[in-house]
């Protein structure tokens, strides 16, 4: 399994200048993610997780360091690294199925099979019956399913997720976690998932990158060997939790 990493960062640092004062957000972030691996980046609010994800996506350029995808340096956003955002970013003027078709339209690779492909992925996330609805007429959990479908349909090398379930209620959140794990395994999808929720990370991840604050950097990597499906009540959770908390606040 250990060929060229699906994604790796080398010494990524990010500084902002606020009123002439230099503020470091990320400092020398170096980690790599293997093909098909489910990685969680865990850290408290304000540690630079979202900034890091935006750099991985290519939305912003780091002050120093670089990001490689399959060995090639990336400089801008692209459909090889799809993002599921924390906020609702569906196009409100498109129906559910038109939103899912958006990235396929105009791509020669999918010509002639867009309709079938959209329906297939809508079925995967369980929303085939809602394909003609507008985003404003469906619930928050359903919107996140559409967000997931519209990027999975593009068959991305890497799926980047920025606290995508943070605004969902507990039950919907558990459902979405299960769905994501199932789809990730079925599609052998490489996933980088940012969260501040330690239990969520232990539940879904193969590997957890622990990120500290001031300046934001990854201090420890933790492999979760526990079989799936995992339950928060399992004793092993306590052990993992302990290690993560100690790394976060030592």
């Amino acid at each position, binding site marked *: 399994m250990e060929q060229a990493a699906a994604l790796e960062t080398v010494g990524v640092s990010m500084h902002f200048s606020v009123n002439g004062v230099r503020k470091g957000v990320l400092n020398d972030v170096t980690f790599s993610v293997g093909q098909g691996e489910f990685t969680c980046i865990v850290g408290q609010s304000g540690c630079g997780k979202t900034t890091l994800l935006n750099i991985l996506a290519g*939305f912003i350029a780091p002050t120093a360091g670089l990001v490689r995808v399959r060995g090639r340096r990336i400089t801008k956003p692209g459909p090889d690294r799809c993002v599921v955002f924390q906020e609702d970013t569906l196009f409100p003027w498109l129906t559910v199925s038109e939103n899912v078709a958006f990235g396929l339209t105009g791509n020669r690779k999918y010509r002639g099979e867009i309709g079938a492909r959209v329906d297939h992925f809508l079925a995967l996330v369980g929303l085939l019956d809602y394909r003609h609805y507008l985003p404003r007429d469906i619930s928050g959990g359903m919107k996140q399913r559409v967000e997931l479908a519209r990027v999975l349909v593009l068959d991305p090398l890497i799926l980047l997720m920025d606290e995508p379930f943070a605004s969902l209620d507990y039950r919907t959140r558990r459902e979405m976690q299960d769905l994501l794990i199932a789809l990730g395994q079925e599609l052998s999808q490489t996933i980088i998932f940012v969260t501040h929720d330690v239990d969520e990370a232990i539940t879904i991840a193969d590997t957890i990158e622990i990120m500290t604050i001031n300046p934001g950097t990854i201090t420890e990597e933790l492999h979760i060997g526990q079989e799936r499906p995992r339950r928060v009540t399992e004793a092993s959770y306590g052990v993992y939790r302990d290690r993560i908390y100690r790394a976060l606040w030592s």
Partner: protein
Amino acid sequence: MNGTDAGKDSKKGLVHGVLPWIIPAAFVCAWFIVSRAGILPPYLLPDPVTVIGTAHIYIFAEPGSAPYAGRFLQDASTSLLRVFLGFSIAVAVGLPLGILSGRVAEINRLFSTFINGLRAVPGITWLPIAMVWLGIGMRTTVFLVALAAFFPIYLNAMAGARQINPLLLRAGAMMGTGRIRGSYAVLLPGAMPHIMTGLRLGLGISWAYLVLGELTGVPDGLGAVIMDARMIGRVDIIIMGMILIAIVGKMSDALLVAFLRLSFKSARRMP
């Protein structure tokens, strides 16, 4: 659904349908009473029946059978053409410039001082210079209409492009949308509510400046008829002309909205 619910619904629909016509109807009634009771003499305010009769001759009678007879089609189509041309120029310049100014700070900086300075000059002050440059008639009117309609279209397009959620643009970019597709598949629909407001305001003001352009001695057009009628003291024709402009203007607005809804999902599905 049971009987009473259905009854309620149709009653609601009736109210909904009648509501927009109450004030126009009350207005006509008041007009009728004021003119028939002799509060104002007919040479200041002719009664509605006279105006309807005048409109009938103006619209349907054989041309030449009476003064102004049968001229409506000619006047209305001339005026519509002038509005259409002026408005189209305003859209063609104002929409792209507004959207670009809303997204690119440098372009906004380049144009905004000039455009806002220009905007401070009342449209009517352009009339003398336009007449000197372009003469009386079609070209001056189209120029005035284009100039006046430009500002609301430009300003609203800019506001629309500026208020777009940047995450929508990021979402488009991460799905592989380039600059060109991003412009018409994300930017334009995202700014559509503002764009639509700007276009409707622009079209409305087009009619105002059409009449201004036609008040200067051109032989045809709805504004020309009104000015012409004043000189021979035909108040009934003045009022008829005003009402016809209201009707044609309202219809052109409805047509614009229908066209946008037909052409753009984003206009059709506006919340």
